[in-house]
């Protein structure tokens, strides 16, 4: 039974990681129906920024939680700026183009950012320092779950709740939903949709950066390529849960994490991806829009 719980919590952590990144995918898709392939790269840039900021700040003598929060904050602001800029450069000019064009533009942006970091930083793996000390109260269960894992799970939960509340009740959230339903109508009613889309990208990128910092802190190593693999898995999670739906992204992430963890634990890690993507195909056969996705008629 202990083994089951170990796998359960391992899967929960992994799933929360996917979910945290998937939230950004799903938000952007919900508003402008674009699969933002550069999202994984924002996550990677967040991790790099946090590493650089943490190195600089620790030279100034900062340690512990204050270092994590400050480095994380810098990473969030910097990544949000990247998200904002990418939208302005790569997607906005193509908003009226056919749907394939921004998609290709997104893939191009992703490759560009990877190579940009590769050239500007390094192709090597870098060690990411442990920014969170082990919590004393986690000691008895530390063989099942570590503090850095708890932090990821809790952060994902808080982010999901806040995001849901924000979209449901805030003024900007309502504007977002309106834009998602019908851009032209929203514009006629006086909503500045450019601003709405920018805010969406900023929030999504900020979440990716938070993910980048926490996950790198948990794993302990980063390189320019981490965004690609994490991005693909998060994208899968978003599709699984129903792309465009916030709770769907989280649910999809968790299901994916658990599937991988239990498949590895009880069957074989050789088939980890086979089970994960097999499940995706299986669910899409019965629910083409994903678990919580709504099937809506194509808007023309």
């Amino acid at each position, binding site marked *: 039974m202990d083994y089951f719980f170990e796998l359960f919590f391992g899967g929960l952590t992994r799933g929360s990681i996917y979910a945290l990144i998937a939230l950004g995918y799903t938000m952007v898709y919900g508003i402008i129906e674009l699969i933002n392939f550069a999202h994984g790269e924002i996550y990677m840039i967040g991790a790099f920024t946090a590493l650089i900021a943490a190195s600089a700040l620790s030279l100034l003598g900062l340690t512990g939680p204050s270092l994590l929060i400050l480095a994380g904050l810098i990473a969030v602001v910097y990544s949000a700026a990247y998200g904002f800029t990418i939208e302005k450069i790569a997607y906005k000019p193509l908003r009226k183009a056919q749907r394939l064009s921004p998609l290709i533009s997104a893939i191009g942006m992703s490759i560009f950012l990877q190579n940009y970091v590769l050239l500007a930083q390094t192709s090597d793996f870098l060690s990411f320092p442990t920014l969170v000390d082990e919590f004393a109260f986690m000691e008895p269960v530390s063989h099942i779950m*570590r503090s850095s894992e708890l932090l990821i799970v809790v952060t994902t939960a808080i982010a999901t709740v806040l995001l849901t509340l924000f979209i449901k009740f805030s003024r900007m959230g309502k504007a977002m939903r309106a834009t998602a339903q019908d851009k032209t109508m929203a514009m006629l009613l006086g909503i500045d949709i450019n601003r709405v889309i920018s805010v969406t990208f900023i929030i999504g990128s900020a979440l990716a950066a938070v993910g980048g910092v926490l996950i790198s802190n948990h794993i302990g190593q980063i390189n320019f390529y981490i965004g690609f693999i994490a991005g693909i898995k998060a994208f899968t999670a978003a599709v699984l849960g129903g792309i465009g739906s916030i709770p769907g992204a989280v649910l999809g992430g968790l299901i994916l994490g658990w599937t991988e963890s239990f498949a590895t634990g009880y069957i074989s890690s050789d088939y980890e991806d086979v089970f994960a993507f097999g499940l995706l195909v299986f669910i899409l056969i019965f629910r083409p829009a994903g678990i919580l996705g709504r099937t809506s008629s194509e808007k023309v």
Partner: protein
Amino acid sequence: MKRILCMLTAAFFVFCAGGAWADDVIRLGVPGAHSGDLASYGLPSAYAAKLVVDDINARGGVMGKQVVILQEDDQCKPEVAANVGTKLVSEKVDVVLGHICSGATKAAMNIYKDAGIVVMSPSATNVELTKSGDYPNFFRTISPDDAQALLQVDFALNTLKVKKIAVIHDKGDYGKGLAEFAQGFLIERGAKPVLFEGITPGAVDYSAVVQKIKRTGAEAVIYGGYHPEAAKIVSGMRKKKMDTIFISDDGVRDDTFIKVAGRYAEGVYATGPIDTTKSPMAIAAIEQHKKVYGTEPGAFYLNAYAASLCLLQAIDKAGATDFISVTNALRANWFDTPLGKISFDEKGDAKGIGFAVYQVQDGRYVEVGK
């Protein structure tokens, strides 16, 4: 006039043949890839043979005879290699340095075997060439593909005295290949691995695999793959308070591993090639290459240098060029080469070359066993 010219030409050819093919020379065949895509693997060996032969000839040759080189290009292609082998045999080579690629070597071996010619490759690593026992005339100055796995298994079972071993790999050619060899050796020695699994390279974390290793109660993990995944698995295990011994390969014996895994890297074992480039003979051989050819030597240069020395010295020591005398001399003697002091075992693999076990101690790799 025409007739005289014809006769003269004929006489010239007879003379030439008589001079070159007289039995007062030792003929060293040097087949290998000297053109095409893989020429960079073969040419350094031809250069090495040339330097060694010039040296030996200047000092009076082998058994008082001069050594001549018969160089043949097989382009690393098995079908060409078989023709090259036939040609060399018909030209009455005494010993052969080559071939370069395992496939080409295999294709030509039966021809040499039937002719009773000793062959020594500087670079063919295929396990079967020596292990199968099919080619008693085959020797090599490079470690076979399974050498690292053998060393890892022997080190774990004999030096560390562990019994329960998990074998993990990254599903790649290199990692999975080594892991399969390790599994084979473990089963041979009656220590069947408690777990044999592949992981997905680049995955976010490996906590499930780590939990699985823990559940099997493995005392040691043998990992085949590269350092990024190794670093994740080791830190995952250490963070979960597991002190399982971690043994890995050349792909992990890299300073980046220590840099990334940090304090979790301490105590990790990894096998890697013995560093030979610092020995005086190796330095001299490299200098010689630079002086004659004006460049740094290429792939397998030192291996070929050592192989040429061993072959020619073995003939000198045996006082004959026949198969039995040369093979006995190769097995009975230790030869001074740029790779160190080497000899050959029953199967034809070199003793004294290959891999050593290193351990991370205070942030660097330290040799702990051979």
